[in-house]
């Protein structure tokens, strides 16, 4: 399968590094508005062709799959052109700035018989997949509630809060935090299904170019409830996922490899906390070492992206079920839309 990328920035590197490892995938071309950025990426990853005009690339290379890895406000037009050129499209999150644009894209893809996928990478990290496995096996019990809280300092001068060059994500409703909503919404959707109602609080604690730096939400979904959050002030950086089942509870930090389960135990009830604590301590010590070692090798916290791409290409080649369906993308983004602020703070 011929793969091509539009956008050769930071996240593109993760896509490229992964694609180089996938069997049956030919990295055919890359495109970026900056000629040197496109040329350097082609040079580095052994890609035979580079372009600065995505339409020229689509016309000349005719890729089977296009990865759109540009800033979100450009996704809609680029994905549309890629679908029209006959390609399946993998779009980085957030797939489009508005839900209406996403609906238009999904419709166009369905009309053309093509697939449109949004990168819901954290669903495919080891920890959520292991929790999912236990849920499917029945040992976890039915999920009643899920909590997802990202604590990430995005107020530093080099990234989202760059006072010199406004970050593209600031054009989204919700600003920089909107860039993380697909992570929160996709994890909620994975464990408790499509949402029925959602209520969000958007706040700003610190002075910065960001419109908001704190976010909390409560979601009522078909199979349970979810509490979602983002904090730019709480430290240290962490990506907490807690899943509450009828028989077990799971806690993981998706920036690390830590994953602990607490469930029924074959000991007298008063001793359960003692043995649970011992077990949890042992698991955390092992995870600490694994987190250290994975800094040296592999995709690190992007392990889910690699797994997502591997499953996607396998499914496309075998014409089997995709790991993220159009329905998933629509449901996740229906929740994202419901979580967005109604008006920007002044």
């Amino acid at each position: 399968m011929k793969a091509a990328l539009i956008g050769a920035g930071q996240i593109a590197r993760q896509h490229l590094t992964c694609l180089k490892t996938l069997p049956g995938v030919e990295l055919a071309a890359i495109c970026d508005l900056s000629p040197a950025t496109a040329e350097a990426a082609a040079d580095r990853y052994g890609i035979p062709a580079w372009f600065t005009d995505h339409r020229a690339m689509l016309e000349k290379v005719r890729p089977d799959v296009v990865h759109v890895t540009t800033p979100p406000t450009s996704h809609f037009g680029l994905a549309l052109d890629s679908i029209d050129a006959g390609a399946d499209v993998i779009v980085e999150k957030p797939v489009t700035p508005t839900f209406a644009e996403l609906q238009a894209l999904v419709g166009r893809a369905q009309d053309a018989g093509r697939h449109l996928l949004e990168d819901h990478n954290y669903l495919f990290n080891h920890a959520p997949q292991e929790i999912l496995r236990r849920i499917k096996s029945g040992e976890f019990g039915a999920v009643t509630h899920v909590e997802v809280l990202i604590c990430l300092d995005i107020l530093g001068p080099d990234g989202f809060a760059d006072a010199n060059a406004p970050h593209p994500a600031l054009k989204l409703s919700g600003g920089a935090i909107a860039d993380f909503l697909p992570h929160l919404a996709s994890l909620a959707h994975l464990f408790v299904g499509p949402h029925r109602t959602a209520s969000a609080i958007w706040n700003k604690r610190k002075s910065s170019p960001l419109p908001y730096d704190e976010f909390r939400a409560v979601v009522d979904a078909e199979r349970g409830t979810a509490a979602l959050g983002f904090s730019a002030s709480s430290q240290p950086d962490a990506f907490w996922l807690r899943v509450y089942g009828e028989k077990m509870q799971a806690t993981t930090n998706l920036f690390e490899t830590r994953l602990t389960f607490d469930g029924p135990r074959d000991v007298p009830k008063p001793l359960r906390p003692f043995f649970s604590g011992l077990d949890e301590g042992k698991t955390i010590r092992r995870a600490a070492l694994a987190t250290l070692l994975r800094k040296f090798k592999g995709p690190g916290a992007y392990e889910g992206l690699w797994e997502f791409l591997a499953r996607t290409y396998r499914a496309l080649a075998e014409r089997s079920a995709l790991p993220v369906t159009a329905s998933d993308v629509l449901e996740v983004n229906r929740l994202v839309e419901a979580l967005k602020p109604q008006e920007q703070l002044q």
Partner: protein
Amino acid sequence: MRALVTGANGFLGRHVVDALLARGIEVRAMVRPAARLDGLDWPSSVDIFRADLRTSRDLARAFEGVDVLLHLAAVVSGGEDAQFAGTVAGTERLLDAMAATTCRRLVLCSTFSVYNYSAISRTLDEDSPLHETPELYARDGYTISKWWQERVTRRFADKYGWDLTVLRPGFIWGRDHAYLAALGQQFGRHHLVVGPLTRIPMTHVENCADVFALAAVDGRARGQTLNVVDGRGERIWRYLSDYMRGSGNRGWRLPVPYWLAITVVRLGFSTVFRAATKVPSILIPQRFESRLKPLRFENRKLRETLGWTPPLDYRQCVARTYGPTAPPRAGRIYRPALINLNKAT
């Protein structure tokens, strides 16, 4: 004569502005939109142009009435991609804008990092081999982006027939920037000194700025690529002693011979880290060499081409780096002589 200086409020840039002013050259200083300029003490004649090379539109306006561009701007913090976007794509946008103007003269601030230290055995000079791709991509983000910045700039100069001078400074040091990667590895207050007798390819920021101002006005600099170091460099042990004395840092120093350190690094890399994707820079042999390899460094070509000698000797540089802060606009060292200005116009 008017010069446009990008990165004008940076560590080197602010001294280059002073050096140009001392030579009687009008300066347009390009600084980022949110840059704070307090403490720079620039005279009102300095024309401030606020722009960010990554995003600002209408960069061509910055070139109005400009005879020479001194391009010092580079992103030196953040991840590899942020550095590439800021330094390389930013240079493309700047030079695209320049192509639409009448400015035809350009001095680029490159770096010693573009040289492939692993392929150099004795003396590093302007004829030494540069990195090549794909070997380049094993290097750090700064090296990759500066290498590409030089490549992009040369392509523009060739395409539009510009007069280009590429200056490649070694380690630039001065007040508040005295700790150098060439000193080894710091652990808190303590130092692992690799190759204590190795000489550092170094240039004091005021000496370095003097070269940039000279290159801007001296016609002999056109078409040249020149390494910028003050001389053969101080030995690491002595420089570190002065640093510790001057900065009040009272840690321990553990000297380790270079051959022993590089052997350990190579052994570790070939047995443990070869397959790793993320390794601390000091544990990668090529990067280790580019920081610490004992080579001879000299400024013969700079001296012969421009007749330059450093205005400040090492002791004076130490005094200016660690001594009392000079009163505003006093004690500047830049030579006002407009030597060879006629050749530049």
